[in-house]
């Protein structure tokens, strides 16, 4: 229920929201958790394993219990949303999760009755047999029963963002220490980013009363924030959790941009930041820890600091009769806050026998809680002290087991925190992350005055490291109390006392782990799953290891902590991969002919990042094969036009350019004359084929290398390596010119006629023999012409600067059509090259050698080249190798498939008898037969043999004749003619 006159909420802005279908009202400034408590809702969830009724434990991002599904437009939903983080907006709809059929009547609560069987290690011991049942029956069943929220099952099409930021000083957290650090750094002129996880700056000042410099702490904070807001060198980031610390002063952060808005209106949901900071000041505060006692997980049992937050910040009384259980002075502080707010304090149970006795409430000193009752909400507790045991009626119990400094970020580069017995907590190790300076409560300083001073110290250290002069600021005066604590981790004798609420791990489970010799803290964690829930053990790690230390007879520092890893809070993959969904996965590369191809109805297929036309359908054609056959006939009988701009083009110049080409190619290029083109083969250092293509000599010491589309980047990288690492002294310079030129293949018996109709000067046949190249002019534009052929026909490739590509493609295609030909796509291109036995990366797939593809003679004996030595080694050549052959089905109409394997006739089609495999297949309209290219053991010696082709995937079994891979025009007369 609401408390009059309390809280930082805006009571003039009521907000309607729904939880599990029931309508409630809250106010602007509420979280879902504070609004639910204000409406008297205590039961908000079911526990992970036992389906125990659970309520709200905390008031921050560490919440283990109050996880809900937030329902959004379009049937979307965000599971595992912490009600303590989710801000209220008009129309917010949330649903409890992990329960069936409803939150109050959850049938799976039967798990709780079975709990004696479900202890740690239960699954490992029980579901061992039969082995096959684990994946098919046990695990799915267990996963259904134990769990978190559900995803919508739809694509998350919402907008996410990622961003980079740079600053001199990143301050993490905006409590007294963070504000003081930010102010000190900002006044020194440093560029400052102040990141705060909460929607509002101020840290504990928002929840705990106390004076700073003679005014309310919050008023002091507002003054500091107003100054920071006015400075151009300061960026204030709220709703931004710093999630990880990485090398080089880089930190990651998750900004919740629009989760708090009913209508994001174009804003992203979240932004994942990478912040590079000269220095970072960690002022992230501390997290209060619970105490383990019998049935300490009932709705209504909360952390004491959370109770104070709900009272002071949100004006909500979390109960009518509140009790407090603590092992430190927090007990008194919390009681005072409640009394001041007019809430009845039923009793204060302080485990310390010497606890101070001030206060107008019933105090049990040296007492503990030994039991609680209330199925869907706390009703009473059992208190035991020296005088015995008694019941206290209460509907809200505030618990404090002390505070754990938020050391997480300091441990992200493998630093381990250090135990400080004075505050019974781990504090950051000295310089655990270079450039990250912990201060305030995060460093174990718990008084307001101490935090202010420590924040200033941290900022001065940061400024000093950055070489900046800092003004000396007078420290504001504030409370400088002491923090008296007597450790109490678990109440003795409890049957079931929860340590990890989120994963249902009890004291007994940890003791069992120790008993079964999982006594290392890392083993205990994995055996019990403690700390492996969405809260990553923020509420339970220290308590669990203290119990483990006790059970194994070791001290806490000796037992040590588990490893803290990023991210500090759950982070959606969508935010980290922002912009990468669907087509955003990679850039799309479009050729200049793209629009013309799409207009002609060509299905576009991806070739690397490029989009290329598969075929160009014409009216009346019912399937791709008809189009493809027609396009093949264009090239074989008339003329076809194809965009080949996607092939890599590398311009190579310099006095050592020829020598360089001789080194990277197996064959010789230094002898190539200007105006001529040569086919080249490139090996990797390990002797296998890397790539192939043609290289043209454009002039003295000036070459143009062509790579395959797929390997353009790879070849460029290889050339850079060879130059930079092997021969940096050679005078050779190269650069990609792929994007500069639009290049089109014009292929077929009538290709020269077509070109003569469009070139400014007609081609003289004697000037343009096969493998010639040179400058031409097209419509007044300077271009390049290459007489090369990937189809086996008389063919050219004509290149113009890319701005003219669209126009030239349309002009060429229109002329080809007039001549009875037209555009051809990738399918026809593939058929044309298979008919000619020309290879692509289907054949040079990384495991084939020059010998395998029948090109061993291309490795020049007169010079060295990359890969030459390895290519000649035993095992790389000889009859044991799978060698490139052609395949023709004995019945030409029988289809064969790439990927099929080859076997001797009469032998079983199994792995041991494998004779090779098929890499490329097509239907050849020219030869009226299916054709295949394959690698066959000692294949070149087996031409004429009948081989059995078996495709277990497509269920085909075809007898083929082994033949030369060049099916058509083996002497090459057509290309030369």
């Amino acid at each position, binding site marked *: 229920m609401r408390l009059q006159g309390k809280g930082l909420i805006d009571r003039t802005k009521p907000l309607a929201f729904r939880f599990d279908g029931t309508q409630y009202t809250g106010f602007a400034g509420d979280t879902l958790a504070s609004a639910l408590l204000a409406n008297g809702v205590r039961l908000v969830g079911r526990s992970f394993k036992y389906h125990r009724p659970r309520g709200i434990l905390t008031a921050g991002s560490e919440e283990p219990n109050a996880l809900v599904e937030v329902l959004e437009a379009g049937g979307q939903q965000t599971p595992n949303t912490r009600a303590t983080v989710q801000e209220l907006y008009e129309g917010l709809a949330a649903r409890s999760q992990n329960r069936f059929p409803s939150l109050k009547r959850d049938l799976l609560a039967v798990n709780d009755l079975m709990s004696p069987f479900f202890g740690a290690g239960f699954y490992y011991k029980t579901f061992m047999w039969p082995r096959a049942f684990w994946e098919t029956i046990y695990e799915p069943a267990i996963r259904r029963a134990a769990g978190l929220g559900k995803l919508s099952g739809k694509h998350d099409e919402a*907008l996410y*963002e*990622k*961003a*980079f*930021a*740079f600053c001199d000083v990143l301050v993490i957290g905006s409590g007294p220490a963070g504000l003081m650090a930010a102010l000190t750094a900002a006044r020194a002129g440093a*560029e400052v980013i102040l990141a705060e996880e909460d929607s509002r700056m101020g840290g504990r000042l928002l929840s705990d009363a106390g004076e700073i410099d003679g005014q309310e702490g919050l008023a002091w904070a507002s003054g500091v924030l107003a100054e920071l807001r006015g400075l151009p060198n300061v960026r204030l980031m709220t709703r931004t959790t710093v999630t990880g610390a990485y090398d080089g002063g880089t930190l990651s952060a998750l900004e919740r*941009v629009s989760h708090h808005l009913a209508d*994001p*209106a*174009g*804003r*992203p949901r979240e932004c994942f930041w*990478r912040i*590079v900071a000269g220095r970072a000041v960690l002022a992230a505060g501390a997290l209060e820890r619970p105490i383990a006692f019998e049935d300490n997980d009932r709705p209504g049992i909360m952390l004491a600091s959370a109770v104070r937050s709900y009272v002071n910040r949100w004006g909500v009384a979390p109960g009518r009769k509140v009790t407090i259980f603590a092992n430190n002075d927090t007990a008194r502080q919390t009681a005072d806050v409640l009394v001041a707010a007019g809430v009845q304090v039923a009793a204060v149970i302080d485990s310390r026998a010497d606890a101070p006795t001030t206060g107008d409430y019933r105090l049990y000193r040296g007492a503990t809680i030994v039991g609680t009752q209330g199925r869907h909400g706390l009703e009473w507790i059992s208190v035991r002290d020296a005088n015995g045991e008694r019941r206290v009626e209460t509907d809200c119990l505030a618990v404090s087991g002390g505070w754990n400094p938020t050391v997480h970020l300091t441990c992200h580069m493998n630093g381990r925190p250090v135990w400080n017995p004075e505050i019974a907590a781990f504090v950051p190790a000295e310089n655990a992350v270079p450039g990250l300076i912990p201060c305030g409560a995060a460093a174990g300083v718990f008084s307001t005055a101490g935090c202010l001073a420590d924040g200033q110290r941290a900022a001065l250290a940061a400024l000093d490291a950055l070489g900046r002069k800092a003004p000396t600021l007078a420290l504001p005066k504030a409370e400088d109390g002491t923090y008296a604590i007597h450790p109490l981790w678990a109440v003795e004798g409890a049957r079931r006392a929860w340590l990890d609420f989120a994963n249902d791990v009890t004291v007994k489970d940890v003791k069992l782990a120790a008993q079964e010799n999982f006594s290392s803290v890392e083993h205990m964690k994995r055996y019990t799953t403690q700390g492996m829930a969405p809260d990553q053990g923020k509420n339970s790690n220290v308590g669990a290891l203290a119990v483990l230390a006790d059970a194994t007879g070791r001290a806490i520092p000796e037992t040590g902590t588990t490893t803290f890893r990023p991210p500090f809070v759950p982070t959606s993959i969508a935010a980290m991969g922002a*912009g*990468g969904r669907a087509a*955003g*996965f*990679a*850039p*799309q*590369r*479009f*050729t*200049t002919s793209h629009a013309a191809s799409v207009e002609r109805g060509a299905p576009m297929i991806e070739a690397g*990042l*490029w989009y290329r036309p598969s075929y160009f359908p014409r009216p009346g054609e019912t399937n791709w094969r008809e189009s493809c056959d027609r396009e093949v006939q264009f090239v074989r009988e008339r003329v076809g036009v194809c965009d080949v701009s996607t092939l890599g083009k590398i*311009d190579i*110049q*310099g*006095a050592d350019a020829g020598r360089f080409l001789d080194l990277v190619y197996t064959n010789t290029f230094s002898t190539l004359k200007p105006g001529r083109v040569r086919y080249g083969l490139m090996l990797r250092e390990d002797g296998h084929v890397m790539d192939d293509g043609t290289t043209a000599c454009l002039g003295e010491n000036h070459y143009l290398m062509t790579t395959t589309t797929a390997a353009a980047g790879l070849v460029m990288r290889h050339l850079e390596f060879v130059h930079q690492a092997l021969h940096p*002294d*050679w*005078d050779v*310079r*190269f*650069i*990609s*010119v*792929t*994007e*500069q*030129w639009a290049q089109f293949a014009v292929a077929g018996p009538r290709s020269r006629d077509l070109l003569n109709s469009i070139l*400014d000067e007609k081609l003289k046949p004697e000037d343009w023999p096969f493998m010639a190249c040179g400058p031409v002019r*097209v*419509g*007044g*534009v300077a271009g390049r012409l290459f007489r090369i052929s990937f189809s086996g026909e008389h063919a050219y490739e004509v290149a*113009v*600067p*890319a*701005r*003219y590509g*669209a*126009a*030239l493609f349309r*002009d060429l295609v229109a002329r080809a059509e007039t001549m009875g030909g037209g555009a051809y796509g990738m399918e026809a291109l593939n058929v044309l090259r298979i008919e000619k036995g020309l290879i692509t990366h289907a054949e040079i797939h990384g495991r084939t050698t020059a010998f395998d593809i029948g090109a061993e003679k291309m490795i020049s004996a007169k010079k060295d080249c990359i890969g030459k030595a390895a290519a000649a080694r035993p095992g790389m050549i000889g009859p044991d190798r799978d060698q490139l052959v052609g395949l023709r089905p004995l019945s030409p109409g029988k289809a064969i498939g790439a990927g099929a394997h080859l076997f001797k006739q009469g032998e079983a089609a199994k792995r041991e008898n494998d004779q090779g495999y098929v890499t490329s297949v097509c239907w050849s309209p020219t030869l009226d037969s299916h054709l295949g290219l394959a690698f066959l053991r000692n294949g070149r010696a087996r031409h004429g043999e009948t081989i059995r082709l078996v495709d277990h995937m497509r269920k085909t079994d075809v007898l083929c004749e082994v033949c030369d891979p060049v099916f058509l025009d083996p002497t090459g007369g057509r290309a030369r003619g």
Partner: protein
Amino acid sequence: MAELIALSATEGLLPLTHGALTLAGAAPDRITSVQPFKGKEAAVTKALKAAHGLGFPAPGRALAKGDARILWTGRGQAFLLNADPAPLAGLAALTDQTDAWATLRLTGPAADQALARLVPVDLRPAAFGAGSAIRTGLNHMMAVIARVDDGFDIMVFRSMAATAIHELETVMKSLAARG
């Protein structure tokens, strides 16, 4: 004689305005890659100075004189913009790159904030002020980015222009929505 029709790399895609940010085409008249041959670095600098009042830029830097500019684009490599490369013949490997790049100009007060969503480089004025040019990533693609008076010139592969514009527009819209 019929002429070939020329289309720009950003034909039909620009300009765009969202909030205070504008993205427009800014193609230079001419782009030439300049890679000095071995031992010719000083001669290239001298020739650039004599012909265009420029020099060969240091890594991360750009030089300008009138319309002529030269941007550092990589190890031993620079792009000469709006200037005749003929005086460098024989001193450096030269290639015409005019049509290889789509040049986009992003202007407006929060231009650096928009780019900060795609580019992993410190673009704050102190680190990337006048005369800065860098070869870096624009989300998944490679880019050359140079500071200009009121914003940035972003050069990407011509074939990737549509994706680059789409990604820039997405962050421009998102920033405008954030207000």
